[in-house]
């Protein structure tokens, strides 16, 4: 098995951007995605035993988990020949894009559609959503890195007040809930813990905290389908699993009930607890880095 991983310092290209929250209207639709500005900084990533000093650059993160209506725009878009967009004065070319196959069954598992988080998409599909959204809107979107996600999730939530902030096994009624009903965290981001777990861009590597040096915008990438990291815990997890520091990672069990071979590139059959949210960074990342994020 080829296992190749590395940590990257992103190629920084500053673009004139307004460092505030905004709403990204998705063209040809009635939907928009609210984005929250999160100023970068240094933090201790990891738990008490294993951690490392880490810094992340500023980014915007979607206020809510991506909902079914918005994910459906990606599933239903009219394929066209648009293969580039412009950020600032930089032209970004895209090597073609495909959209998810129609799932052969109801992927909501009867838990709800309008206003509810999209789930059961593969990590690859969530990455491709970001690529599609970038092309549609002309802003560079991708999944958060594990570091960005953890930085954004650290907050005042604890075992005493968790019911104010998060849906978990003991208060969810055995299903995901509409996004944005609980209190937001200190950044103004909703449901980052609980409701559905969220894909992040990184491949899982157990020992990311070896180095004593400051890690700057780390991102672990390898080509393997598994294991990829997801974070935050879900409606199906006990509340003590809903921690900023808790790392979950994928394996083939997420597609166990896919009756077909090869298994779907786009759909998991056993992941009604995993969705995603998106980020936008001030720079657009280098082409090779973008390819890793989008074709993950």
């Amino acid at each position, binding site marked *: 098995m080829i296992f190749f991983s590395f940590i990257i310092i992103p190629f920084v290209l500053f673009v004139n951007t307004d460092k505030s929250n905004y709403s990204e209207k998705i063209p040809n639709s009635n939907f928009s995605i609210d984005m929250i500005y999160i100023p970068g900084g240094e933090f201790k990533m990891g738990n008490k035993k294993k951690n490392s000093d880490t810094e992340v650059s500023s980014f915007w993160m979607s206020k809510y988990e991506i909902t079914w209506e918005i994910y459906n725009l990606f599933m239903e878009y009219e394929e066209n020949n648009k293969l580039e967009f412009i950020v600032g004065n930089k032209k970004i070319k895209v090597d073609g894009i495909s959209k998810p196959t129609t799932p052969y069954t109801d992927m909501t598992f009867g838990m709800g559609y309008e206003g509810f988080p999209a789930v059961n998409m593969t990590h690859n599909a969530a990455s491709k959503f970001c690529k599609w959204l970038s092309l549609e809107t002309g802003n560079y979107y991708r999944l958060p890195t594990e570091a960005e996600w953890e930085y954004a999730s650290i907050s005042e939530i604890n075992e005493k007040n968790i019911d104010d902030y998060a849906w978990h096994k003991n208060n969810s009624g055995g299903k995901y809930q509409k996004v944005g009903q609980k209190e937001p965290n200190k950044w103004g981001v909703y449901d980052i813990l609980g409701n559905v777990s969220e894909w992040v861009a990184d491949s899982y590597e157990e020992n990311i905290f070896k180095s004593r040096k400051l890690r700057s915008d780390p991102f672990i990438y390898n080509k393997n389908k598994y294991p990829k990291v997801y974070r935050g815990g879900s409606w199906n997890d006990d509340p003590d699993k809903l921690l900023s520091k808790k790392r979950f990672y994928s394996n083939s069990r997420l597609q166990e*009930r896919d*009756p077909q071979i090869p298994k779907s590139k786009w759909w998991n059959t056993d992941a009604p607890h995993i969705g995603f949210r998106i980020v936008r960074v001030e720079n657009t990342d280098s082409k090779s880095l973008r390819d890793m994020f989008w074709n993950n």
Partner: protein
Amino acid sequence: MKKESRRSFVRKTAAITSGVLATNVTFQSFANVNENKKLKLAVVGCGGRGSGAVVQALNADDNVELISMADAFRDRIDSSLKGIQDHFGDSKKIKVKEKNIFIGFDSYKKAIDLCDVVILTTPPGFRPLHFEYAVNNGKHVFMEKPVATDATGVRRVLESAKKAKENRLNVVVGLQRHYQNKYLNLYDKVSSDQIGKIVSGQVYWNDGGVWVNTRKPEQTELEYQMRNWYYFTWICGDHILEQHIHNIDVANWFIGEYPSHAQGMGGREVRNGMEHGQIFDHHFVEFHYPGGAVVSSQCRHQKGTESRVDEVFQGSKGSVVLGKGEIYNLENELTYKYPKSWSDDPNPYQVEHDKFFRSIRNGEVISDTENAAKSTLSAIMGRMATYTGKKITWDQIMNSKENLVPDNLTWNSNAPTLPDSAGYYDIPVPGKTKFI
């Protein structure tokens, strides 16, 4: 289940007596031979589902080998074999020689001749022909639902089912809810009178629909229909049959009867291009059961609409919602919830193969065919009710003369249905389409 207890009885008896009676030594050694015999597996119909079923079969038994593959198209076999190999790495269980790969309409015969166990996973129109041949040649069969696309095919499958039973052949059909712990658990609750007698129900398969394979210039009409098979009634049976059979079958199972008549409505509202062939994009059918229960069945393939795949039944004492695994009393208070989450239950697609191979090894007989054929016929009854706009009874459909699938198709045959000059196909019109 009955089979389980009988098997454990046989095993216990053998264990206790084998050391005592000489005759049992013979029995034991026979049993060991049976246990050790290499089982040769063939697959007929090498799409994604056929490939998936091969993987499950190879996982189900230590001594089974895939030795032969058949499909109408060579490229389907190549991609299937690659998918299976990719899944297993370099498994010794995959032994498909080039000479045992068969292509074309009659390829099924050669593959079945070589095997002990066959997986039948072509589109459903061909199932009666393939099943009959497999049974006539003494093979154990795993086959996907539905088992036919018309009543003529259903009768043929029912005839072969008798012969399979007489010859102690195992037949498992991919109505996998029968192999799913949640359904089995709730079936036990319902049969032990927790909701009383079922009087009504609602069953659903509503979602965005399935793939389309667009026409390629080099294809003949018949090849095009074979590639884009979902949209042609002769080969697919319409989605009320091809998918919604799962939910109609659960109604039959939980009520314990097959419907006496059906009436309903359907049509095609949004999925109506020439690439969508003949089938409807929605059906709504009332199934009436001999004991008085009425089940509303709805299936829809329309993108952007509310999705639901589920079964719900109301009884004289309460109700059951199978999707959520919940039972309610007449005051609509929750009285029972199936305790396990989806991730704690074994994969039913694997369980059906585990039980299939265990039954073969133990010399037992699983006979899923008759129920599968009658649930197939129930869905066809629903389809003919929406196509004609008339009430259709069980006796009518059981004796229907409709025969959609020609027996001796070759690549030179005309396709069973042909488009008009603009490329559109005949679509059923309620009130005009005749029941045959």
